[in-house]
Structures are given as structure tokens and as C-alpha cells.
């Protein structure tokens, strides 16, 4: 054994090493920030930033998804489940009393809250569930914030016979207690995550660690348009049905397109789902609503476009709330589903391109909007969706009476009664 200290033992060569051939083996090593469209890139955003262990699984998932997309049988089976199991199509409802009260644009509500399990999340879970079957895996893991994605995942796993583990921050378990019980009732194991802010971001970290470990047998059923390629594209595609239906429904009801569409944006799955089929209709304003939380300081909100900057978190390049050293910031929102420091990469691209706008709604505004919608239309929205309602309260009065605005009610508020009770003090 070498006992002399500081002996020259290792010499790492530098680029004088001529043996090294860059970009050999037909690999293009200059892809990053190319800016041109390529799978998994939305402008400069997106990509696939994960530990090497996961790369093969992501490539497999991408291949299987591409095949499934072109497979009529797969699509027919998914459509049938969406119709007979999830309850699609969801209604587009004219909110007459809310419209009158606000005195401006005609307000329509896209009722994703009426879906089985209570939110839009089931669209994606059924799609990925059928992919899991195709790939022959039997174990499914997921993260959840508000618990809606966890419940939808547990539901699909029960339906298709998969083992299911859901990671959830312990702070979220506390505030979304009812959904924790629902998941357990459905046969899923809920694993509490105690690191960081004990919310959605930390649940994703833990799910990724599980996946890295069990990648050969396990599918990670990611619940938003986040993470490494192909997730942002695949999850969007499974939610496109929202916008496709809404477009046909509004044309049938009103004979014209809406002036604006408003949806809340956590990771951004319900919003991209309803936006997507309207992107080419340049006159339709697309408005995403982020969690404004309790203030503008870093740590008091989850408005990525107000305080964030481009960075890489959990597999994708997008806007991220971070400090000057690149550490990810803590976030706050009354709504667990919006309480996340990054945003889907396609939203970052839509925002940079000026095609969609993103505005914050505060905790207080969301709570107020919940009460208003409950009392004018008899609909209790999820606290996430209430952020979108809060924005229509600001927008509708400024719009012409002949204008139409569609609000995506992405989920129902049953899960939030505990928080609402504490906050609203009605009893």
C-alpha cells in the first residue's frame, strides 16, 4: 500500500487527449438549446435531464407511446374507457348567474370536476395505465400533491390490476386527508415524504428514487406535463380531449370561438389540455393562472413566471423558482396541486412566444372565488380550479357582453372541505 502522502496517483487528462473523438458513433452531441423543434423540446424548453439509469426506460416509454398512438385498438379501448368509465364527454355549462353577477363576458364552465374520481387527472391515468399493460409491467408508482392524481392512479391500478404506490408529502397528507384515505381504500400504498417542503416537489423526488431503483419492473405514472421527455408530450396528448370537446361544444352552443380560455396551472396538465386545440386560433386568449399564494417574496407563492427563471428541475428545462445559487426555492399555496416550483416546459414556450399569458391569483382570491361559484352556480370547485375562477372574476367585467370565456373547472372541491372550513369560518 502506498504510504507516502500526496503522491501523484491519478492524472486526469485534459483536452490534449487526441484519442477522444467528439460526437463519434453518429451521435449528435450539440443538440442542446438548438431552438428548433424536435421531440421533447418546446422551443428551448423540455428535454430529458435524468440520471442515466432511467434513460433506457424513458426511451422504451417513448417508443411504446409512439406505437400506441398509431394503434387504433389502443385508441378505441382508451376512448371506450374515457366514455363508459370516466364519464366523457364532460359538459360545457353556461354559468348564467355568474355571468350576470360579473356583468361582462358570457362564462362557460368546462366540467372536468364531474369526471370519475373528481378531476381531469383520470384522462392521463387511463392512458398511461393502458400503456403499462402494453409494456407488461405490473407495478405503478406516482406522486401526488392535492391527492387527485394519486386517487386517479389508485383507481386505474385497481381497474387494471396493478400494484400501486403513491408518494405524497406529509404536509399534503395533512391538508388532503380525505384523498389519502380514498387511495388506501382503493388498495394503494401511500408513502409519506418528509423531506424539503413536504409537498409535491418532494413527492416527485421520492418517486424518482423509487423508479431509479425498480425501473425494470415499475412504471412511473407521472401526473402532470412535467419531467423528462416523453412525459410532457404524452400527458398533454392524454388531456387534449378537454380542449377538443370544448371547441366542438362552444361552436355548437354559440357558433363561434371564445375570446378567452382560463385554466389554473400547477404543472399545467389541465391547462395545456384545454389550451392545446385552441393554440392555432390566434384570437383566443389563453390565460393560465398560477398560485399567487400569500405574497410576492420567494417562498410565499408558486408563480413561476413572476419570480422564476429558466433552470432544470426533475428532468425538464423550464421556469423554476430558485435562489441565486441555483437551489430550488420553497413554495406556498393554499392549493396543494399548484404548490410546485416549476411549470411544464410547453407552458414556458407558449409564454415566451407570447401565445399564452400567465397571471397569479392569491390564496385569498381563490377562497373568495370558491364561495362565489358555490353560491351562484351550486358548484364547489377544487381550490386549484378556484384560481381560474378568481381570474374570470377579474377578466369578465372588462370584456364585452358578446364575448365568451371558458373556465376549466379541473376538479371538484370535496377534497378541500377541511381547508375551506378552517379558512372560511362559516360554522
Amino acid at each position, binding site marked *: 500500500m502506498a504510504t507516502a502522502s500526496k503522491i501523484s496517483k491519478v*492524472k486526469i487528462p485534459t483536452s490534449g487527449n487526441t484519442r477522444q473523438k467528439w460526437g463519434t*458513433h453518429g451521435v449528435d*452531441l450539440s443538440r442542446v438549446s438548438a431552438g428548433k423543434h424536435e421531440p421533447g423540446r418546446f422551443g428551448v424548453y423540455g428535454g430529458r435531464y435524468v440520471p442515466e439509469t432511467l434513460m433506457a426506460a424513458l426511451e422504451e416509454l417513448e417508443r411504446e407511446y409512439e406505437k400506441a398512438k398509431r394503434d387504433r385498438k389502443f385508441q378505441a379501448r382508451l376512448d371506450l374507457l374515457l366514455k363508459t368509465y370516466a364519464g366523457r364527454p364532460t359538459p360545457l355549462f353556461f354559468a348564467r348567474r355568474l355571468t350576470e353577477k360579473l356583468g361582462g363576458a358570457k362564462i362557460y364552465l368546462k366540467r372536468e370536476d364531474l369526471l370519475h374520481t373528481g378531476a381531469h387527472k383520470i384522462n392521463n391515468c387511463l392512458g398511461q395505465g393502458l400503456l403499462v399493460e402494453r409494456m407488461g409491467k405490473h407495478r405503478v408508482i406516482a406522486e401526488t400533491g392535492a391527492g387527485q392524481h394519486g386517487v386517479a392512479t389508485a383507481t386505474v391500478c385497481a381497474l387494471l390490476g396493478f400494484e400501486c404506490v403513491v408518494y405524497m408529502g406529509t404536509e399534503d397528507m395533512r391538508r388532503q386527508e380525505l384523498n389519502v384515505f380514498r387511495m388506501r381504500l382503493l388498495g394503494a400504498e401511500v408513502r409519506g415524504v418528509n423531506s424539503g417542503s413536504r409537498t409535491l416537489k418532494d413527492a416527485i423526488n421520492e418517486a424518482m428514487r423509487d423508479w431509479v431503483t425498480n425501473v425494470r419492473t415499475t412504471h412511473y405514472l407521472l401526473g402532470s406535463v412535467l419531467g423528462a421527455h416523453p412525459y410532457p408530450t404524452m400527458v398533454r396528448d392524454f388531456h387534449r380531449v378537454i380542449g377538443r370537446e370544448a371547441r366542438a361544444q362552444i361552436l355548437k352552443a354559440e357558433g363561434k370561438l371564445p375570446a378567452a380560455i382560463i385554466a389554473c396551472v400547477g404543472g399545467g396538465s389541465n391547462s395545456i389540455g384545454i389550451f392545446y386545440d385552441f393554440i392555432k386560433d390566434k384570437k383566443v386568449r389563453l390565460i393560465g393562472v398560477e398560485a399567487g399564494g400569500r405574497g410576492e417574496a420567494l417562498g410565499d407563492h408558486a408563480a413561476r413566471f413572476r419570480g422564476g427563471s*429558466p433552470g*432544470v428541475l426533475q428532468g425538464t428545462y423550464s421556469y423554476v423558482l430558485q435562489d441565486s*445559487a441555483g437551489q430550488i426555492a420553497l413554495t406556498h399555496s393554499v392549493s396543494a396541486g399548484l404548490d410546485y416550483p416549476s411549470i411544464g416546459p410547453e407552458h414556458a414556450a407558449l409564454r415566451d412566444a407570447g401565445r399564452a399569458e400567465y397571471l397569479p391569483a392569491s390564496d385569498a382570491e381563490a377562497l373568495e372565488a370558491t364561495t362565489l361559484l358555490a353560491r351562484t352556480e351550486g358548484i364547489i370547485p377544487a381550490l386549484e380550479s378556484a384560481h381560474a375562477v378568481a381570474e374570470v372574476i377579474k377578466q369578465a367585467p372588462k370584456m364585452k357582453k358578446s364575448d365568451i370565456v371558458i373556465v376549466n373547472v379541473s376538479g371538484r372541491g370535496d377534497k378541500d372541505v377541511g381547508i375551506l372550513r378552517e379558512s372560511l369560518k362559516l360554522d
Partner: protein
Amino acid sequence: MPLTFYKKPALVAYVTCGDPDLATTREIVLAAIEAGADAIELGVPFSDPVADGPVIQRASERALKRGTSLGQVLTLAAEIREQAQSTGLIVFSYLNPILRMGLDKFCKVARAAGVDGVLVTDLPVEEAGAYLRAMREHDLSPIFLAAPTSPDDRLRRIAAASQGFVYAVSRTGVTGQRQQLAEDARKLVTRLRRVTKLPVALGFGISTPEQFAEVGEFADAVVVGSAIVETIERNRGREAAAVGEFVKRLSAVSGQPSAVAR
């Protein structure tokens, strides 16, 4: 010329910088070098270490509570370089702190500090174009991970993009100790040998002299991380001495000089 290990297996020691504080990290690293570590991985703490197990997660949290940043880690690297001119120094980081500093600035400062190589946990070769250009421009060696799940065509790309050595991940999973080393590890090293002449360092889950010796039979170098970080955690107040003793026990089974050097 390619990376030369003068003994086999060479020992690469990982520390999370700033745990318990940067001054102690410096002492720990110097003690590890004194005890026989051939190269040092300077771990940059990150708020969301998805590839790390509980030991390095806890160390990262402690380091971040003290405000440890990438800039400070590079300053530390320069201090260590003054004391240890010929030990390999590798920065081990997640991508975001590097992006935030700026690729070019990072490479420039790292090179000036005397850093030799960089390993970015969440940067696969496909996404590494700009990174590789910056590394090359500043004379730094990019080191990539190879996993048991990587098919052969990926191993070829990884080897082509790597300089210095290839870091083989012993098994699927996060960093941290394991009772048994997976058969995965041996298979992966064998597969890598077919596609590259670069030395192969094996890491993840190696914590005992016995495992070190076992792995040393087929790998050129062994990375020990969580076991060192845990030694630091368990020996408050005498971290450097404890790590020195631990590294000595490991390098007792290494140290067969250069007859087997590649």
C-alpha cells in the same frame, strides 16, 4: 494520454461539500488524500438530489443550511489543489447550480481552481452538447455515468463523450450502502470493456474493505461515497481523523502497485 491509475483498484472518495462546514470538508479531503485516496469527488449539495439516498440527502440538507454554494465549492477546490498538486479533483453536481452560474463561467472558474473533471448526475449524453463544448474549451474532463440498464449503444455514446474514466453505476438505485453488490456490476464493467479502453470506476453501494476488494478484481477504480459521508455524520468533532482511518482501511486492500495498472 489516457487516465493512469498507478494502483488497482484506485480509490475515489466522495464528500458532500459544506457538511458540516467547508473548513471541515477541506480537512476531511486532505486526510483522505493522506490516507491513500487517489481522486476526490467534491459533491455540490443540491436541494433536490433525486439520484441520492438518505445519507447524502441528509448531508446535502446540512450543507445547504449553512449556505454552501457551487461558487464556494470551487474556492474549496482551489484550496485543496494548493495542498495536493497531483490528486484528481472532480466536481460532482446536479445540473441546475451549474446552469445558474453559467456553463462558461463554471468551466472557467473550475479550471482556474485546478479541477480536473466534472460529473453531472442528471445530464445524459444527449443533452450534453453545450456542456461538452464548454468543457473542451476549458480543458476539463467530462465524466458520464453508465448504468446497468444502459443498452450497448448507449454505453458506446457514454464512452465516446467521457474523458478520464467512465463511472459505472453498480446497480439500479440511488446512492447508498448495500449488503451485497449486484451481479449487475460485473456484467456492466464487462460490457463497458467491449466498447472502451477508458478506465472504469465503479460506484454506488460500496462501503466495506471486503466489497472494495471484490470490486477491485474487475474495476480499475472504486468510488466510495455514502460510507464516507456517513462516517462524517457519525463522528462529530473528529470528522477528518475518522475519514482518514476509514480510507486507510479501504486502501489497505487496494495499493497493489502498478504491475496491474492499465
